[in-house]
């Protein structure tokens, strides 16, 4: 029995290692394989990007719904026809440090690295040109030299702090990549204050990106496709407006195709309608269909993607189909929440020395998720949530912050007319609020059990 238990524990540990919710599915051999999904948005996005090499598209959806997974899948699909460059903001800069200037530096650094890795060193002339653009970051340096030197030195100070001690001679792409990596490090650690950064003119970096992408296309002999991941995690409304609306031309002018992720709440914010005018069509990735709690058969098509995820990591030995249904229902159709919940269930089983996840463990995980939000939502939040659910989605701008936090879920593929529902882990809290306030119970609404 002891041997049996130790084998099971090793198996559970192996399952736990592969159930990593933070790694996009299909990213590498250690990640969960990608589950193909039946999504009109993805079909349209693929058609758009394949047909137009310079198309710019935004892919939106809840955090954890699978946008990064689909971006990596797109990269694999188009790698032979396009020179694909992936920019991951969270790894290089941190989402809280992002604005258009920093985003352009991330893109430029990724392009330089991609050139060096795949095409060899950069032409000396191109390096010269890119270095020359740094000079134009200070608006003062564009003026005639007759301007007073005191003013010039004051203006140049943020540039010196951002770029540190610039080497006297930069003649290779490697040196340039190192310089921009150091700039990113300084931006990530906020070595230069936002007020100082605001004095820099981003058009020099924007020009560098444009030049770099034009030359990259010419050298690679195929169009460039830029995949910008993690932009959906930008929470600061000012940064969202800056990147997606006010200075969107910094991205739209680039000589390449772009697919960038976008926060769902931007679409429903005050200026959300402007997005369509600026970017054209937005593609929204919907959550997986949510299976009903009651259901006996494993052939239920709504349960199928969740079972596929579990089978792909061999977790069917540890989690039964009924438990899978329960966890899938509680995840609200968000794959990352499902994977996280499954890994939490397996952790509980491992800690308890059980060879298999018990129903009790699933209940514990659901309770943990609800407890995470208990006390963090105010009455005004519940009120906004109830207003959206009861109106069938008419009052969403009131609850846009709840959409950002994943408390309110938009599901465009929902069968009924109600495209918004409360996250399952918040439903008990909302019910409790309704009882407390004696609000009239909606006839059909949300995910209330």
């Amino acid at each position, binding site marked *: 029995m002891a041997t049996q238990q130790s084998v099971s524990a090793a198996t559970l540990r192996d399952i736990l290692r592969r159930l990593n919710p933070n790694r996009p599915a299909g990213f590498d051999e250690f990640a969960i394989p990608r589950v193909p999904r039946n999504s009109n948005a993805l079909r349209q996005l693929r058609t758009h990007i394949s047909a137009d090499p310079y198309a710019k598209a935004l892919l939106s959806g809840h955090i954890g719904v699978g946008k990064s997974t689909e971006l990596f899948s797109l990269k694999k699909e188009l790698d032979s026809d396009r020179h694909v460059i992936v920019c991951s903001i969270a790894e290089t800069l941190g989402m809280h440090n992002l604005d258009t200037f920093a985003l352009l530096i991330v893109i430029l650094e990724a392009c330089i690295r991609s050139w060096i890795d795949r095409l060899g060193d*950069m*032409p*000396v*002339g*191109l*390096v*010269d*040109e890119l270095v*020359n*653009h740094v000079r134009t970051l200070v608006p003062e340096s564009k003026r005639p030299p007759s301007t007073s030197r005191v003013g010039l030195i004051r203006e140049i100070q943020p540039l010196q702090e951002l770029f540190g001690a610039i080497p006297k001679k930069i*003649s290779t792409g490697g040196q340039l990549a190192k310089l921009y990596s150091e700039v990113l490090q300084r931006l990530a650690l906020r070595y230069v204050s936002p007020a100082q950064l605001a004095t820099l003119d981003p058009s020099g970096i924007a*020009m560098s990106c444009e*030049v770099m992408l*034009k*030359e990259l296309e*010419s050298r690679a002999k195929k169009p460039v496709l830029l995949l910008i991941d993690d932009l959906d995690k930008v929470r600061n409304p000012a940064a969202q407006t800056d990147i997606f609306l006010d200075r969107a031309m910094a991205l739209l002018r680039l*000589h390449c195709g772009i697919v960038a992720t976008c926060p769902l709440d931007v679409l429903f914010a005050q200026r959300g309608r402007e997005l369509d005018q600026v970017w054209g069509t937005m593609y929204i990735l919907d959550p997986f269909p949510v299976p009903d709690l009651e259901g006996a058969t494993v052939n239920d098509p709504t349960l199928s993607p969740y079972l596929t995820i579990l089978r792909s990591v061999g977790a069917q030995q540890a989690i039964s189909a009924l438990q899978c249904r329960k966890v899938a229902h509680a995840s609200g159709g968000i794959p990352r929440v499902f994977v996280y919940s499954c890994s939490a269930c397996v952790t509980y089983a491992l800690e308890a020395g059980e060879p298999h996840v018990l129903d009790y463990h699933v209940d514990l995980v659901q309770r943990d998720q609800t407890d995470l939000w208990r006390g963090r939502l105010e009455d005004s939040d519940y009120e906004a949530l109830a207003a959206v659910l009861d109106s069938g989605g008419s009052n969403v701008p009131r609850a846009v912050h709840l959409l950002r936090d994943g408390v309110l879920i938009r599901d465009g593929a929902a069968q009924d007319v109600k495209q918004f529902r409360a996250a399952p882990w918040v439903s008990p809290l909302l019910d409790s609020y309704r009882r407390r306030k004696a609000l009239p119970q909606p006839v059909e609404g949300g995910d209330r059990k």
Partner: protein
Amino acid sequence: MMLNIYLQSLLSHQPAIGVVRWEDRDTLQRLLAVLPRHLKAAHGGKGTLRTIAAADMSSEQFGKAVVTSLRNAAEACLIIYDIESFAGLAGSILNGQRERLGLARAILLCIRTNRFRDFALEAPDVMSWVGNNVAQATDFNETPLRSDVKKSLRLLETKYGMTTSAFLARSDVGKATGIPDAWIWRELATMDRNMRDGAIS
């Protein structure tokens, strides 16, 4: 537009600076193969032809090459190409050397269309001299004759003091890196071989 008409129009100006924009490298190669013959014909068989291929140059080297090429250049025609990687800086350099550019009989600048704007922004004075002398390489889309290719090869042989076969032998063992015109020389040699074998009619 016929190339000879464009060149005659260009040479009727002083200073004579023209820009040819291209999008496809093959088109540029075809143009470069026939350009020497047409330029010489338009110039009445006089003068010399000088080229600056700036693909592997830094901006500093390019500046020096411009100065060197424009020495005693009253009867010389200068063709500049492959400046795309530093089009903006090349624009600044040429704009700064504009008086010197006027010393040459004619200057023809070939630049990829999507970098032309960057060049033009940095070279406003040069562009005012260029005026209407801007053309598309596809406008001169004519198949080069084998005699054009042979003439171009002879120009390169004279310039670098070695035969094409000697150049190819050096190129095959990787010792042709110091020759700025190496790629066009190889292309011309390939074209010559294909024309001889009948692959290109």
